[in-house]
C-alpha cells in the first residue's frame, strides 16, 4: 500500500489534517498539489462561514434585516446542513442558538485560549440531566431555496453553522478527493475517510480520551465519517464563578451537563457523525446508547469511564494487528 501524503494546518479554530493517497487517473494532481488546493478550499470555507467575522457571508446573512437574503451555494449548503442536523437530532443540535451561546460568554473565537480545567468544572456543575429541544423550534422557520439562490428566515433570527461546519467541510473535501486511492480529511476531529484503498485496507483512527489525551480505542474505517464532541476544549469560567461550555441545552439556553464529557460517533458521513456525537453528548448516557446504536460509537462518562456502544468491538488494538501500517 502506497504511503499517504500528510499535511496539517490551523483553520476553523481547529487542527485540520489532510492525508491523501495516489491519484487514480494521470490527469489528477499529485497528492502534494491536491493537499495545497484543498487547504485553500478549507480556509475559504472557514472565512466565508465564520460566525466571528462580520465580513463573512454568514455574518452578512445574520445582519441582513430582510426576510429573504441572497446566499451563495456554500452558504445555502451550510445552512441546509444545520437545519438537517436539527431535524436529525429532533431539535437538539439547533443552529439558531446564537443568542444563547453569546449570552453565556461565547462571543468570539476561543482559538488559542487555554480551556478551564474540566474536572473542576464538573465538580462545580449542577445536577446532571439530558438536554431537551426548545419548544419554539426556531430552526423550522429557516427555508433554503436553491432555485432562487436565497435563504429565508424571520429577520433577527441568527444562524450558526459552526455546529455542523467541520463535518460538512470534511465531507466536501472528501468528495473533492474521490479520485484518489485513499484519503482522510480531519477537520478538528471530525473525519471523513474514503477511496478504494480504504475499502481494501481500512484506516485505523484513534479515539482520544478528553481527560487524559490517551487513546482509549482504535476504530477501523473503510469509508464514511467519525466525529467527536466533548467538553474539554471550549470551556471557560464565567464572571459569576460558574463554568460554561459551548454545548447548549436548547430548552434552557444553558450549557448541558448530561453525565458525559465526550462522545465519538461513526456514521456514513462526517456531517452525520458530528450530529450524532453532539446528540449523544447532549442526551447523556441513556440517550447516547440510543443515538449511537446503529453505527456505533464511544462515550466517556464524567468519571472518566469509557463505554463502547453499538457495532464497535473491544477486540483489541487494531494497530497491533497491522492496520496501523496502512497509514
Amino acid at each position, binding site marked *: 500500500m502506497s504511503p499517504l501524503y500528510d499535511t496539517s494546518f490551523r483553520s476553523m479554530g481547529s487542527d485540520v489534517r489532510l492525508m491523501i493517497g495516489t491519484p487514480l487517473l494521470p490527469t489528477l494532481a499529485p497528492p502534494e498539489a491536491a493537499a495545497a488546493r484543498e487547504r485553500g478550499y478549507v480556509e475559504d470555507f472557514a472565512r466565508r462561514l465564520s460566525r466571528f467575522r462580520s465580513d463573512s457571508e454568514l455574518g452578512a446573512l445574520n445582519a441582513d434585516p430582510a426576510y429573504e437574503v441572497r446566499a451563495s451555494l456554500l452558504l445555502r449548503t451550510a445552512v441546509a446542513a444545520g437545519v438537517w442536523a436539527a431535524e436529525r437530532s429532533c431539535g437538539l443540535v439547533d443552529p439558531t442558538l446564537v443568542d444563547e451561546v453569546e449570552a453565556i460568554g461565547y462571543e468570539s473565537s476561543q482559538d488559542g485560549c487555554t480551556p478551564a480545567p474540566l474536572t473542576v468544572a464538573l465538580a462545580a456543575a449542577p445536577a446532571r440531566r439530558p438536554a431537551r429541544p426548545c419548544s419554539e423550534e426556531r430552526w423550522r422557520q429557516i427555508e433554503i431555496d436553491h432555485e432562487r439562490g436565497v435563504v429565508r428566515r424571520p429577520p433577527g433570527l441568527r444562524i450558526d453553522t459552526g455546529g455542523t461546519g467541520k463535518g460538512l467541510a470534511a465531507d466536501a473535501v472528501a468528495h473533492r478527493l474521490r479520485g484518489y486511492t485513499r484519503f482522510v480529511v480531519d477537520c478538528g476531529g471530525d473525519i471523513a475517510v474514503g477511496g478504494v484503498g480504504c475499502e481494501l485496507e481500512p484506516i485505523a*483512527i484513534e479515539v482520544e480520551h478528553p481527560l487524559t489525551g490517551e487513546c482509549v480505542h482504535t476504530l477501523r474505517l473503510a469509508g464514511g465519517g467519525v466525529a467527536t464532541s466533548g467538553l474539554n476544549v471550549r470551556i471557560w469560567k464565567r464572571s459569576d464563578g460558574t463554568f460554561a461550555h459551548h454545548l447548549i441545552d436548547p430548552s434552557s439556553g444553558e450549557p448541558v451537563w448530561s453525565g458525559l464529557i465526550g462522545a465519538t460517533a461513526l456514521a456514513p458521513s462526517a456531517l452525520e457523525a458530528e450530529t450524532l456525537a453532539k446528540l449523544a453528548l447532549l442526551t447523556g448516557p441513556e440517550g447516547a446508547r440510543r443515538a449511537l446504536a446503529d453505527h456505533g460509537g464511544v462515550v466517556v462518562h464524567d468519571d472518566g469511564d469509557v463505554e463502547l456502544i453499538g457495532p464497535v468491538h473491544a477486540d483489541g488494538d487494531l494497530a497491533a494487528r497491522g492496520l496501523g501500517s496502512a497509514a
Partner: protein
Amino acid sequence: MTDRSAGRGRSREPLSRAALCAIWATLAIFLALLALMATRVASGEDPALRARAAATPLPPRRVLVRRIYERRVIVHLPPDAPPQPAQASQQVSASGGYASSLPVTRTS
C-alpha cells in the same frame, strides 16, 4: 493425394470397443463425482466454505468499561508569562510529509 485420402479414411473408422469403454467409464466417474459434490454442497458441507462458515459467527459483543484516572500536570508560570496556547495547537506541524501517525478523533 493418396496419403491425404488414406488419412481421411482412417478418421472415419469406428472406435474400437476398448476406446468406447474408456469414454463411458470416464463419463460415468465424472457424473458420479459431480453428483456427490452437488449433494455435499446442497447439505452445506462444501469443504471450501467450511472455514469461512466457521469464522462467520461473531463473538458475543463485549462492552469494555475502563476507568482512566486523570493525569494532572501542574505548570507554575511566572506572573507576567503569556497565556499558554491550547493543547491541541501544540500538536500541529504545518509542513507536509508522508503519514507516520494514525489520525485521531478528538474534541476540537
